[in-house]
């Protein structure tokens, strides 16, 4: 059986090229992610790094690991999806050949074995290519993570022998899992199909497709209902869930959805004879239309849905920052300069927040167990009363006015952690002090919010003077904020921004890493989708050779046939784009409340242009190639 698999793969490589490329890219991506992950496991901290910088490096490494951990499964999911749809289509194309094997005495298990054998070979070849490609890919990935600031400049991914086992494992698993459904389909092929000249219109909506489609659709509707709450975190999770499940649902149900939307498009298409033909083909060749539309649905649903969700979260974080900050201006300077701000005319209140270099060791409780942890970053020196007045943050316990002398406040960054009440130990310079916890602040949306607040009088003046400081400034009533900002600038204190500008910049900073990875993921999924679409268009065109010839013999010119096919593939793409946007809209609907909805219009426009270009281009080119021989030769030609 493996021999037949091998010769089939060799002889009909066009059917497998797309799937092979997909597996190769998938393996390369997973391997490079793993190589980078392995190297980030043990952060290399250059000797002489301060404790705070070291903690930041560690946090960057952890962030990189999280992002890679999110990106890798998504890449595997996409790869499996594409291999699956390629093979499902390939089985349809090879129905006669498979039926012939049944006729010659092949059993159902043998046919399943044949396809799984092909998948195994494909996975193996793809893994070898992917392993080679994975080495430069790891370098590119590391460069990228350095570029977005998660990894330090000197970082270079190492090599781990574990990928020698892992990569083929991933490649073969992806290929075999992707082919599983198709192989069971192949077992349903009846021997009699080998005798029919035109294969019986096979049922496109198989039981498995119904099951996947309807259960995903039900889950999507459930999620839409659940996402109607006010909790932002819930909306976020639901939005991401809908992007994935909804895409799966609509792509599984695409043989139903595509003709349905196609009917709507029909009124536009029916204006010309070519359009009418194209629309008839669209309705008739359900499987072909669905194979082209499915990747577009997944691409748009997933990318626009996920990006929109993340952008909306960013907007919500910005809105939250603006909401809790009661100030018109934010001044960035060092601690010494910040001390001069209250003397500027028109300044009603200045609340300085200085990042100080110190260590705080707190005791935690987790499931009957207590342990200590030392923090070096996110420790902010503030004036308790000014801070209270400059923020709309009601402490969950205690009051900020007590923040004087040897005391500490647990900040929003650690609000969710189980820090024990009582006191913490702090080390400032060489001095070790015990600080009493006087208040706890509630959680906020921003990720990099303060871990601890300490009173300014606790910190030695020399350290404070050098500390990077942000000062929230309230302007006296009747004074223009612009005038005050000009005065602060004129005094040479530091950089002045409005609260809105400052909040946007902070959110953008926080989002930068996520967006970098999203960009890579988008490129990756876009490439995958392009492979899938081109694959579907090219494989389908091969079966239409005779159909095109008949169309020409009926009186259509070659140009008209090409235009007809192009109109058809464009229409299918428009339908896919529409259905994908529907998924994205469902995913983002929850953000409508509160006005934090951020639709990635640029991305959407880019996807629309790119998918239309790819499908129309692939359609036109293959049709041109397919109509090259003379029409009569094809109409009269036997198999």
């Amino acid at each position: 059986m493996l021999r037949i698999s091998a010769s089939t793969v060799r002889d009909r490589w066009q059917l497998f090229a797309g799937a092979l490329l997909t597996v190769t890219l998938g393996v390369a991506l997973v391997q490079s992610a793993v190589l980078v992950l392995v190297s980030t496991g043990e952060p290399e901290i250059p000797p002489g790094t301060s404790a705070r910088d070291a903690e930041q490096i560690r946090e960057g490494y952890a962030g990189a690991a999280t992002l890679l951990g999110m990106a890798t499964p998504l890449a595997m999911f996409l790869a499996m999806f594409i291999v699956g749809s390629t093979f499902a289509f390939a089985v349809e194309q090879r129905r006669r050949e498979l039926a012939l094997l049944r006729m010659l005495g092949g059993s159902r298990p043998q046919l399943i074995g044949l396809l799984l054998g092909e998948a195994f070979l494909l996975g193996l070849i793809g893994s070898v290519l992917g392993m080679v490609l994975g080495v430069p890919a790891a370098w590119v990935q590391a460069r990228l993570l350095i570029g977005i600031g998660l990894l330090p400049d000197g970082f270079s991914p190492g090599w781990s022998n574990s990928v020698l086992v892992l990569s083929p494992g991933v490649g073969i698993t992806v290929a075999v899992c992707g082919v599983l459904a198709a192989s069971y389909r192949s077992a349903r092929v009846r021997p009699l199909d080998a005798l029919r000249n035109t294969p019986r219109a096979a049922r496109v909506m198989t039981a498995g497709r119904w099951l996947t489609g309807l259960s995903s659709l039900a889950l999507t509707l459930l999620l839409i209902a659940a996402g109607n709450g006010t909790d932002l975190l819930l909306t976020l999770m639901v939005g991401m869930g809908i992007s994935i499940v909804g895409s799966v649902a609509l792509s599984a149900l695409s043989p139903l959805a595509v003709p349905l939307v196609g009917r709507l498009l029909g009124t536009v298409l029916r204006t010309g004879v070519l359009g009418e033909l194209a629309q008839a083909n669209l309705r008739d060749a359900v499987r072909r239309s669905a194979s082209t539309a499915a990747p577009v649905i997944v691409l748009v649903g997933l990318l626009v849905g996920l990006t929109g969700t993340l952008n909306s979260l960013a907007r919500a974080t910005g809105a939250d920052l603006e909401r809790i900050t009661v100030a018109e201006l934010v001044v960035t300077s060092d601690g010494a300069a910040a001390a001069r701000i209250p003397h500027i005319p028109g300044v009603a209140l200045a609340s300085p927040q200085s990042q100080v270099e110190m260590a705080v060791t707190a005791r935690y409780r987790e499931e009957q167990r207590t342990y200590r942890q030392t923090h070096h970053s996110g420790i902010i020196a503030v004036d308790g009363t000014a801070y209270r007045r400059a923020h709309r943050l009601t402490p969950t316990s205690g009051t900020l006015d007590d923040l004087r002398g040897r005391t500490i406040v647990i900040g929003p960054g650690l609000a969710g952690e189980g820090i024990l009440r009582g006191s913490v130990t702090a080390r400032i310079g060489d001095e070790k002090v015990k600080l009493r916890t006087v208040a706890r602040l509630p959680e906020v949306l921003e990720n990099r919010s303060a871990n601890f607040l300490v009173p300014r009088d606790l910190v030695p003046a020399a350290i404070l003077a050098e500390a990077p400081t942000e000062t929230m400034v309230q302007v006296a009533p009747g004074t223009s904020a612009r005038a005050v900002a000009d005065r602060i600038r004129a005094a040479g204190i530091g950089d002045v921004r409005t609260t809105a500008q400052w909040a946007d910049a902070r959110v953008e900073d926080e989002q930068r890493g996520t967006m970098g990875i999203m960009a890579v993921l988008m490129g990756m999924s876009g490439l995958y989708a392009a492979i899938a679409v081109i694959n579907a268009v090219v494989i389908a065109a091969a079966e239409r050779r005779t159909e095109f010839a008949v169309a020409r013999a009926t009186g259509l010119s070659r140009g008209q046939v090409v235009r007809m096919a192009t109109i058809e593939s464009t229409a299918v793409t428009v339908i896919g784009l529409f259905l994908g946007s529907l998924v994205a809209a469902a995913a983002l609907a929850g953000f409508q409340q509160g006005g934090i909805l951020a639709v990635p219009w640029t991305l959407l426009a880019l996807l629309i242009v790119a998918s239309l270009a790819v499908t129309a281009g692939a359609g036109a080119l293959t049709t041109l190639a397919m109509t090259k021989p003379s029409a009569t030769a094809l109409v009269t030609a036997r198999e």
Partner: protein
Amino acid sequence: MSRPAAAGPQASAGAPVTSVQLHQVSRHYGTGEARVQALADVTVTFPAGTWTAVMGPSGSGKSTLLHCAAGLDRASSGRVVLAGQDITRATDATLTSLRRRTMGFIFQNFNLIGSLTAEQNVALPLKLAGARPSRADVRAALAAVGLADRARHRPRELSGGQQQRVAIARGMVTRPSVLFADEPTGALDTHSARMVLRLLRRMVDESGQTVVMVTHDPVAAANADAVVFLSDGRIVDRLIRPTAAGVAERLTRLEG
């Protein structure tokens, strides 16, 4: 070797003289208005070691008869017995095993697997049956159809007649009791067609092979031992030791 004629249901099931037997077989497709009766109450026996041609106008049900006889299509009612085994309600596994050992097929459009060489195509049914075919057996099968020197060629490097001979070698390599042929000369020129028919004749005469062949060509049918004529799903006539002229005359009458 005697040439027993296609006859009524006189031979009992399981007797070595009977290879394929259809007993009151009907087959219809669709329901209601769209109902099509492809076979109506057909009873026919194809005795072992004979060659029977099935003829009739287009849509007369000759292909359906072949499909039902080979267990490729299920009879709506009636009974089909193949090599002593009732296959009317046989499971897929039983039918698969019958296809491996008891049946061989030849098609109008050859249906060779394009990616395999002639030799590999011939060896395929044996491999599917789990046997390890010896190269000598495969070569012998190819030599028997006069293609010993084409063993390593792929189908696209062979002429139509050569491809059909490879298909015959493939159909015969498992030494099946019945060979089903669906328009085996339909896509061939007269010279190649004559060669294929001569091969089939030799198999029946020398190896006692049973052949059931659907054709619309009176010349091809004239090579068979007997001809069964179908019209509207019923057997309407039989001819024993046919001549091309006799067959053509009956066909014209049927179509007229």
